[in-house]
Structures are given as C-alpha cells and as structure tokens.
C-alpha cells in the first residue's frame, strides 16, 4: 500500500506551482515578443522616414531625373551614433542615381508607395532594409526605387533592454504568487491536521463523540459525522452488551437463590418426605439454570460477531426439523401437548449452520409448548417456495402490541408464568437473521400464536 501514500499538501502545491510557473513563463515570452515587435515597428518607421526624405530630393531637370543631394545633407543623413546607414536610389531604367553600398536587388513586384521591409546582409553586416517605389518626377508613369538599410545594433540592444526589464519582474511575480499559494494551501489544510491530531489522540475507552463538527470545513464535516456515527453505534452496542450481561447475571441470581434455599432446607430437614421434596426443588432450580446457561451460550454463538466462525453447509430443512422436533416429544408429553409435524418427509434445502438451526426450531417449539395451552396442540411445519418453517400453538396468543417486545432479550409477557428466561425468541430472531431469514409473529386462527421463519426473504447478515 506504500504507493498509495501521498500528502495532500505536496500534491496541491506541485499541482498549483507547476502550472503557475508555466503560465508566467508563457506570459513572459509573449510580452517579450510583443515589446520586441513594437520596438521593431518604430525602427522600421524611422527607416521609412529616411527613404521618403530621399524621395523628396528627386527632381526632374529638363526631362532628366536627378537626385539633388548636397554632400552635407548626405553626411547628416548617414550620421548615427550606433548603427550604419546605407541608401540606394535607382532610376526606372535601373540606373543607379545614388548609392553608398552594394544593395541586394529590390523586390521586383514593388507596388508604388507601399514600403517593403526585409532582412539582408550588406558588407558582411546583417541589416534591415526598406524598399519603396515612388513616382518619377520626370515621368509620373514610371517609378524610382529607393532602398535604405540600417545595421541592427540598436535593435539588438533593445532585446537586451526588454529582457532586463521583463525577467526580474517575472521572477518577483512568480515568487509572490508561489508564496500566496503556499500560504493558502497550508492554512486551509491545517484544519485537516487538526482533525488528524484530534483523532490520533482519541481515547477509545471513553467513546465520546468528536467535538467541533460545526466549525469544521464542509469537506471534512461528513468525515467527522461518519466517525461520530460510528462512535455512537459502538457505544450503543457496548451499552447493550453491558445491559445484556447484567441482565444475564440477574437472571442467574434467581435460580441460584432458589437453589440455595432449597439445599439449605434439605440439609436441615429430618423428615425424609420433605427432604425429598426440597431436593425436587433443587433439581428444578438447576434445570432452570441449565436452560439459561444454554440459552446464553446460544445467544453468543448466534451473535453477528461469531458469524465468521460459523460453518455453513447445505442441509435438508425438513429432516433437520423432524429430528429436532423429536427431541421435544417428552417435553410435550409432560405438558400434555399434542406435538405434530406438518410438511414433507425431506426436501427443502437450506444453506445454514445445523446446530444453530436446530436451536432456532427448538426455541420456537419450546416456547409453543411452554406458553401454549395445556392439553393443546403444537405443530411444526415446513413449506417450500419460499422455504418456510412455522410453529403454531392454540394457546392464548401474543397481543399485537407485544409482538415487537417479545423479541427483546429477557423480555417476558406480563402473564407468562413458567420458568422461561425470555431469550427464546431473541435467539430465534438472531439465528434467522444469520441465515438471511425473517421471523414473523402472527395470529393462529381461531386462537394461538404462529411464528414463521421465511428463508431468503431477509437481507443476509453481513459476515
């Protein structure tokens, strides 16, 4: 999992810094390009000015074209502190009227009065040239070609000047923006750090919800809420477990007390008949404790947390049900209950834990025998499509209002006498849930209770 490890801070900073630097670099290049371009345009205009000045010196002298350019004017024209200036004036016929350097031939398709700029080399120096055609004063239908060239020293100097101005500026912008980003990222993520620190220092024993949900950024709120939800659930589960253990211990106290009373009585008793009678009560108390212990163990075993140790197999539900029902034959006879089976000899296949399913069936049958009508009828049935087990009795039934509560551990309906411990239906429901089955309590007409366990109807319990 090492490769999945990453820091949000690092990721945010690299993802912000790299594009920022790229954008700034691009901006610098563009502004440099623009500045250079406009600098060039200005120099080109000056070059054109020189060319047009030369054009104004053209005159026609008795039909002959001459360039009237005194030497002083030429000197002034050519003077430049940095660059060298070259010029050339050519008559329509191609005769050189004036020139101080060997120019490349002017472009042939030169339109009148439309200057053309191009780069060339004169005398080994790279130069910028402007070529322009002007109407000849001697014959307006013909054009005189004027070319003026200039070495590029000023233009090269301009590049450096722009560079010196742009580069430090860009560096300053880059540093400022980078700092702002670093500050924004770090300060925003500090709330995450705070949550992490709080979670790191969390005391798992206390199970107190994390505070400060409202002040947390909306991105972290769901996280804190989820953790708080989990904490709430765990603390509720723990409370329920503590309640259960306390309940179980209390439940054990009563038969223990009975056991002690009757044992002491038996030891003290001299009359053999009453001695035996006391011992019968001892046995009853022991039987109750035995039942309770068994139920508690079954409850633990059917708990979701033991689901991973459950060994599920494919089994024949009808056969299992008949087998388990047989175990209750004597209890039924004792309660004078007519115990019966209603369903196929074998058939419906269920994927389950046989021991737990037996407990499920046993608890339902036990309840029906215990709380049904003395001399009544208890029937265990198995049906197919959907696979269903039902147990029905013709006893007093369970009031609709009680049906949810009887599923709670240790809950016993007010008028239920007997020696049950109130775990039977809770166990049955737990086991049903482990098998993806749902447990329904309903009326059995004309009187009595019917409990149905329908397989494949509930959500399979998470393992």
């Amino acid at each position, binding site marked *: 999992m090492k490769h999945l490890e990453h820091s949000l801070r690092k990721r945010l900073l690299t993802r912000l810094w790299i594009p920022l630097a790229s954008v700034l670099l691009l901006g610098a290049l563009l502004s440099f390009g623009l500045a250079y371009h406009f600098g060039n345009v200005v120099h080109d205009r000056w070059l054109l000015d020189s060319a047009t000045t030369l054009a104004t010196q053209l005159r026609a002298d008795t039909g002959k074209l001459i360039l009237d350019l005194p030497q002083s004017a030429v000197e002034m024209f050519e003077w430049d502190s940095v660059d060298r200036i070259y010029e050339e004036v050519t008559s329509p016929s191609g005769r050189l009227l004036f020139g101080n350097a060997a120019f490349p031939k002017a472009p042939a398709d030169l339109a009148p009065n439309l200057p053309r700029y191009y780069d060339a080399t004169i005398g080994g120096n790279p130069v910028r040239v402007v070529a322009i055609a002007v109407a000849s004063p001697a014959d307006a239908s013909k054009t005189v070609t004027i070319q003026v060239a200039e070495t590029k020293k000023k233009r090269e100097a301009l590049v450096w000047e722009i560079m010196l101005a742009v580069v430090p500026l860009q560096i300053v912008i880059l540093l400022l923006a980078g700092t702002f980003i670093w500050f924004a990222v770090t300060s925003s993520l500090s709330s995450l750090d705070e949550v992490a620190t709080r979670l790191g220092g969390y005391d798992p024993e206390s199970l107190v919800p994390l505070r400060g949900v409202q002040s947390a950024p909306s991105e972290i709120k769901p996280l804190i809420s989820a953790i708080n939800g989990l904490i709430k659930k765990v603390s509720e589960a723990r409370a329920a477990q503590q309640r259960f253990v306390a309940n179980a211990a209390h439940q054990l106290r009563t038969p223990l007390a009975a056991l002690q009373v009757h044992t002491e009585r038996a030891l003290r008793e001299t009359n053999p008949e009453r001695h035996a009678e006391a011992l019968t009560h001892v046995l009853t108390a*022991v039987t109750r404790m*035995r039942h309770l*212990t068994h139920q508690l*163990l079954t409850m633990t*075993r059917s708990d979701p947390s033991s689901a991973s140790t459950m*060994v599920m197999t494919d089994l024949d539900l009808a056969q299992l049900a*008949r087998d388990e*029902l*047989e175990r209750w*034959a004597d209890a039924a*006879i004792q309660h004078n209950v*007519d*115990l*019966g*089976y*209603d*369903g196929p*000899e074998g058939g419906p296949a269920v994927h389950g834990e*046989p*021991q737990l399913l037996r407990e499920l069936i046993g608890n339902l049958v036990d309840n029906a025998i215990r709380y049904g009508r003395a001399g009544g009828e208890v*029937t265990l049935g198995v049906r197919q499509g959907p696979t269903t087990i039902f147990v029905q009795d013709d006893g007093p039934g369970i009031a609709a209002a009680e049906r949810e509560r009887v599923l709670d551990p240790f809950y016993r309906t007010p008028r239920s006498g007997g020696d049950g411990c109130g775990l039977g239906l809770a166990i049955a429901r737990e086991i049903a849930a482990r098998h993806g089955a749902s447990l329904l309590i309903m009326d059995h007409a004309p009187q009595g209770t019917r409990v149905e366990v329908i397989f494949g109807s509930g959500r399979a319990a998470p393992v």
Partner: protein
Amino acid sequence: MRLLLIEDDLELGHGLQSALAQSGYVADAVHTGQDALNATAAVAYQGIVLDLGLPDLDGVEVLRLLRSRGITAPVLILTARDDLQNRVLGLDAGADDYLCKPFDVAELEARIRALLRRGDSAATTLRRGNVAFEPASRRLTVRDQEVELTARELAVLELLLRRSGRIVSKKHIFDSLYSWDNDASLSNVEVFVSRLRRKLANAGADVGIRVFRGLGYRLEQGYASDETS
C-alpha cells in the same frame, strides 16, 4: 460391569460415582489423564466415561493413547463445549458417544447402557418392559406368554423395539414393509400399528405405541394407548 470415570472435577466425579453406584455400576474415578492410562493398563474396563478438560493431558489425547494401546472399551465423552468441531474431534479420535454438560443422570445411564449393549446386540432378545422379542425365532412374549402376530405386525414391532425410545417415521416403516413395486399406501401402516396396539394391550403389555402427528410412532413403557377393545 466395571466402569472407569475420568473427571477432573472432584465434586462432579464423586457425584457421578455415587449416582452410578445407585444404578449398580462399579465405577473407578480418576482425576488425571495419566492416572487414567495407568488404570486402564491394570484393569479391563467395560466402559469409560471421559471428561475432555483434564489438568495434565487433553482428553482427546488420552482417548488416542487409549485406542493406540488397544483398549477397545466403549468411550463416552463428557464436555462443557458442545460446538460441532469439538464433537467431531472427539468422535474422530475414537469416542463412541458424546454428552454435553450439564446432563441428566438418567440420560448418562441410558447412554452407558446403550454403549454396553452395543457389543452384543446382534442376536439377543429385544426387550422393553414386559415385552420380549427374539429376532432369530421371531417369537414374541408378553408377560412371558407367547403372543401371535402376523409377519408384518412383527416387523413393525421389531422396528419400534430396535429404535426403542426414538420416533420411527411412518415412511420408514412403510419402506421396510413394502417393496417399490407394491401399490400399498401409507395408510396401511396405520392399520398395522392400530392392530399391533390392540394386540399388545389385550395381552397386558406395559408398553404402548404413541403416535406423533406427522412424525411417526414411538414405543413407550407405561403408555397405554386408548385403543383397547
């Protein structure tokens, strides 16, 4: 009949020893696995009751050692753990039966009786109350008086006697009475059972056949079916 009781809890061991003595069994009680191995080397026991939770050796280990030393006496395991794996483990190691704590003394005795019977069950008389049936000669006596039954009635009774104390399903009886191609129906079984009940009752048997709705029949001592005539 001499039994060996291997139980580390002194209180429970003593109680069991006394209870078994009440029923006419002589039981030697030992409290460790090593003592058990020594005892079995000295005495040929007819049956062994073994608690799995011993202080020195694991009960299953003791069982393996006993079996590896050629001791074939039936072994009944007692344990507080009743999950399937433990049960399978014990039976795989060579145990003959398995009983989970806590248990009824009556049940323990019934299982010990069954284990002791197992060795010589083949040809002996099947007996329940005052009813005795000899499979070899197919002779039935009630109160030592011979009772005449048809072959199929006898077959039903034999099934019930062989699975004494257990419910025998109607289908099971039917399958053992009729071959596949026979067109008899399940209600024939009811007729045979009904006749059997009447004949047993008339002969003064103290066992009766109890009907469990949808499940089958069970032979019970002291149960009087109301079909006397």
